[in-house]
């Protein structure tokens, strides 16, 4: 009843007195804040939520927001003028930001820090007025300089404030200079309101502005401490927080800052440990993946850095959380690199190498090599930022002589070692390396090795008839004597004729005024006739057309992604050279051909196919096929031209495969019921449904089928490459 009565009185008073102006209201709330601290009892256990403080401070914020909204609505009239409340803040008549900064520091009453930080952040997000005003940015600086230690209870509020501040700087880049230390210009000292009681937490704090002014004294000389970005320090601390929401905010804030087009900010960030910090987080996440994790689990993770809400419970499957975190950080690096200023991107790429790759690479020669290989391969596959892909590729091939680059040697060792799983993962890595390699890595790994064409037999040593015999022999590995005895002999002859005819038909289809080179005919035949008919599982070569279509598509892909590579402009015509091999008679004798560690490892594996499991061989042929599809004249010649006489003692793909074919041609017919089993193995391996028939298979038969299919694929690639080269001419 009584309160009803006082309400009535109040409304009567409202009618009589003119309503208070916005400024008066603003000043009223400020006075209430001052009063609160005037009467504040230091020993009080009261929390800020139980006081009127939030009410008054929030009102002040709302008044500033309203004032701005009103000004914006009438913007056409008097634009640019500060409202009365804002003016009071700017003149420090009502030092609201100072008060908030002081509260954030003193945290009295308990909880005041969180309140003050939240209000500062809201002030930044809800108002537009410039921060180029010392009474506003000064207190914000102080908050940054006095950031709380890690894992403080107000970490979330700090992170929100930082994001809001970075957002402001992003929209108004000239602000960045205000948030550097030492300060570019002296900050006016905090003017204490005369009525301020001595023991109020608001005024107790020595104004740090004075400290800053002492240290920097306004003018900096080149000998002074280097300029640093105040925003960066707390932000980087938050990247290490245990609270995923804090980490997310820090990631966003860093991304916002890094995407500023202003080079000054990019350089400030580059001279802060920001990039190193991100790379370290990536490394920590890499190391946290449990070593017993199955590499296959790394496949279908939707791991964007921002793909899960921060408060979502982690997946329960073992290792998935760590795996997700690793790919999340990887994606963040990638995103940061794509979105940031180019100067910073270059710096990030270097940090990625020095702080992540170098350390992660050590795991390749340790016990966890299998997982490390799988993770690094997926890492390279997922990367999209050109700077990072470049850095990764450069790291893989090193700088000095390739034969001495430990990392590559480790990979080659792993690839040739006895652990088939490790061989397989390493081959998968190789496939990505070939697919995503940059110009330099491809050059060093492969192209530089073959461009001298040292694999071609010097004319003097060439004995054409011997070579041809060799080829004949290889094309028909069942050997003449055996053949004569065999019932298969006639069939083999028919088969060869049929293959030749089909190749002839295929080539005739090319509408070209010039006849296809007879060498091409030979090359394709060499591959298609590498295995004798007697051991073929698919003598008709039914899917040859499919291989041609695939090869065409993949070649086009290579053409697109290597279009800018320097070697593509080198239009030297290997084909023309080699057609008339005598044209190079006066070339100086080249050094013995060295295919380099990378190609050597692949060819060695190819030669040892019968000793490796199916999955390894299949992956090996995938890598080799990808290389053979590169539109590089010499590489194509080296891998795809069996008809070209190769220098003695030179490893070539065709020689390696011929050796395997010879072994299989002898060993396979010795297996009991080999034709039936071969047929069944083929069905098992090429069937879409892996569970259709899981009867045990003989490894030799599996190898045979890989080789048989690979030969078709190589023949198709040789054909497609030839087609392409003719179109070029």
């Amino acid at each position: 009843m009584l309160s009803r009565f006082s309400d009535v009185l109040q409304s009567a008073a409202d009618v009589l007195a003119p309503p208070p102006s916005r400024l008066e209201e603003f000043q009223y709330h400020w006075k209430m804040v001052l009063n609160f601290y005037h009467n504040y009892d230091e020993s009080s256990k009261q929390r800020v939520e139980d006081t009127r403080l939030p009410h008054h401070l929030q009102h002040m914020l709302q008044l500033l927001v309203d004032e701005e909204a009103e000004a914006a609505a009438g913007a056409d009239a008097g634009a640019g003028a500060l409202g009365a409340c804002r003016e009071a803040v700017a003149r420090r008549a009502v030092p609201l930001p100072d008060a908030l900064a002081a509260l954030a520091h003193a945290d009295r009453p308990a909880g005041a820090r969180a309140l003050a930080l939240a209000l500062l952040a809201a002030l930044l997000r809800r108002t537009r007025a410039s921060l180029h005003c010392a009474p506003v940015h000064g207190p914000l600086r102080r908050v940054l300089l006095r950031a709380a230690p890690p894992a403080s209870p107000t970490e979330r509020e700090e992170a929100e404030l930082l994001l809001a501040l970075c957002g402001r700087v992003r929209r108004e880049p000239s602000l960045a200079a205000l948030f550097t230390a030492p300060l570019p210009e002296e900050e006016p000292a905090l003017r204490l309101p005369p009525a301020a009681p001595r023991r109020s937490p608001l005024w107790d704090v020595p104004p740090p502005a004075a400290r800053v002014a002492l240290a920097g004294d306004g003018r900096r000389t080149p000998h002074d401490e280097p300029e640093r970005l105040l925003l960066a320090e707390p932000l980087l601390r938050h990247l290490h927080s245990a609270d995923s929401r804090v980490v997310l905010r820090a990631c966003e804030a860093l991304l916002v800052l890094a995407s500023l087009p202003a080079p000054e900010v990019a350089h400030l960030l580059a001279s802060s440990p920001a990039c190193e910090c991100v790379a370290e987080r990536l490394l920590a996440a890499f190391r946290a993946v449990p070593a017993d994790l199955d590499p296959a689990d790394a496949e279908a993770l939707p791991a964007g850095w921002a793909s899960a809400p921060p408060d979502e419970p982690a997946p329960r499957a073992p290792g998935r959380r760590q795996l997700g975190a690793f790919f999340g950080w990887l994606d963040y690096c990638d995103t940061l690199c794509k979105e940031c200023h180019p100067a910073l991107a270059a710096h990030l790429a270097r940090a990625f190498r020095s702080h992540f790759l170098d350390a992660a690479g050590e795991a390749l020669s340790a016990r966890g090599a299998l997982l490390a290989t799988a993770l690094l391969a997926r890492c390279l596959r997922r990367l999209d930022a050109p700077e990072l892909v470049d850095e990764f590729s450069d790291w893989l091939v090193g700088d000095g002589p390739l034969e001495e680059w430990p990392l590559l040697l480790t990979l080659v060792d792993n690839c040739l070692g006895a652990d088939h799983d490790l061989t397989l993962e390493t081959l998968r890595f190789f496939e990505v390396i070939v697919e995503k390699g940059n110009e330099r890595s491809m050059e060093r790994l492969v192209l530089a090795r073959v461009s001298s064409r040292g694999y071609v037999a010097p004319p003097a040593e060439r004995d054409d008839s011997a070579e041809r015999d060799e080829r004949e022999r290889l094309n028909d590995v069942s050997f003449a004597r055996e053949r004569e005895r065999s019932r298969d002999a006639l069939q083999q002859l028919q088969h060869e004729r049929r293959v030749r005819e089909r190749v002839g038909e295929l080539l005739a289809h090319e509408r070209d005024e010039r006849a296809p080179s007879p060498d091409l005919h030979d090359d394709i035949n060499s591959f298609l006739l590498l295995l004798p008919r007697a051991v073929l599982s698919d003598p008709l070569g039914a899917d040859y057309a499919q291989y041609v279509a695939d090869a065409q598509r993949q070649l086009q892909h290579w053409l697109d992604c290597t279009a800018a590579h320097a070697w593509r402009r080198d239009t030297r015509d290997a084909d023309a050279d080699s057609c008339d091999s005598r044209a190079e008679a006066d070339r100086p004798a080249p050094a013995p051909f060295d295919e380099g560690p990378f190609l050597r490892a692949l060819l060695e594996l190819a030669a040892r196919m019968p000793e490796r499991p199916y999955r390894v061989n299949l992956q090996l042929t995938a890598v080799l096929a990808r290389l053979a599809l590169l539109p590089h004249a010499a590489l194509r010649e080296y891998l795809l031209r069996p008809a070209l006489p190769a220098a003695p003692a030179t490893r070539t793909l065709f020689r390696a495969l011929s050796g395997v074919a010879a072994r299989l041609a002898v060993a396979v017919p010795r297996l009991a019921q080999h034709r039936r089993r071969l047929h069944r193995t083929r069905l098992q391996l090429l069937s879409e449904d892996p569970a259709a028939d899981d009867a045990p298979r003989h490894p030799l038969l599996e190898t045979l089928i890989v080789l048989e299919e690979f030969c078709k694929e190589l023949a198709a690639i040789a054909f497609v490459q030839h087609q392409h080269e003719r179109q070029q001419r």
Partner: protein
Amino acid sequence: MAYAYLFKYIIIGDTGVGKSCLLLQFTDKRFQPVHDLTIGVEFGARMITIDGKQIKLQIWDTAGQEAFRSITRSYYRGAAGALLVYDITRRETFNHLTTWLEDARQHSNSNMVIMLIGNKSDLESRREVKKEEGEAFAREHGLVFMETSAKTAANVEEAFINTAKEIYEKIQEGVFDINNEANGIKIGPQHSTAGAGGAGGAGAGGAPPGGCC
């Protein structure tokens, strides 16, 4: 809480069109008169029911400010639905729709359902974009269209729920690969635990029968 499916949404559009307000209205049934600029992403979640099934909507509210596009782009991936919002009282927010659409199509998966929303329908007196224009744009680009008011809550429920219905229908048609989380759809625990060995098939699992694709 158990759900049959989880759908991820994003809300995109120019700054100030009312994206955060739409989310707040949908999740908390409140209206916020102040424009609290979004910089990073804000999350919201709510359970709805479609076809007798509990569906959890996980909504990502993004920043409209051009300056924060570097962050916004990161959130496109892995969304099954998008609310593309403009402000019917500000023509320029309508004019920017094409850019938003291009951005969305470039960074998101191709099956994403996009709902076009003309917001602030309560401000009829200040209308600058006719309803027919919104409809025409939606027709032209194959979007669903609706006018809403985050202030009065008009059509807000419908906007979120109709988007979910579209996604649900696409799932029934087998357009979405629901086993790939990157498409913004997750099968709820009551489904996946039913499939032994975590094979995660499309079976109806523990839910009422008949929901199989």
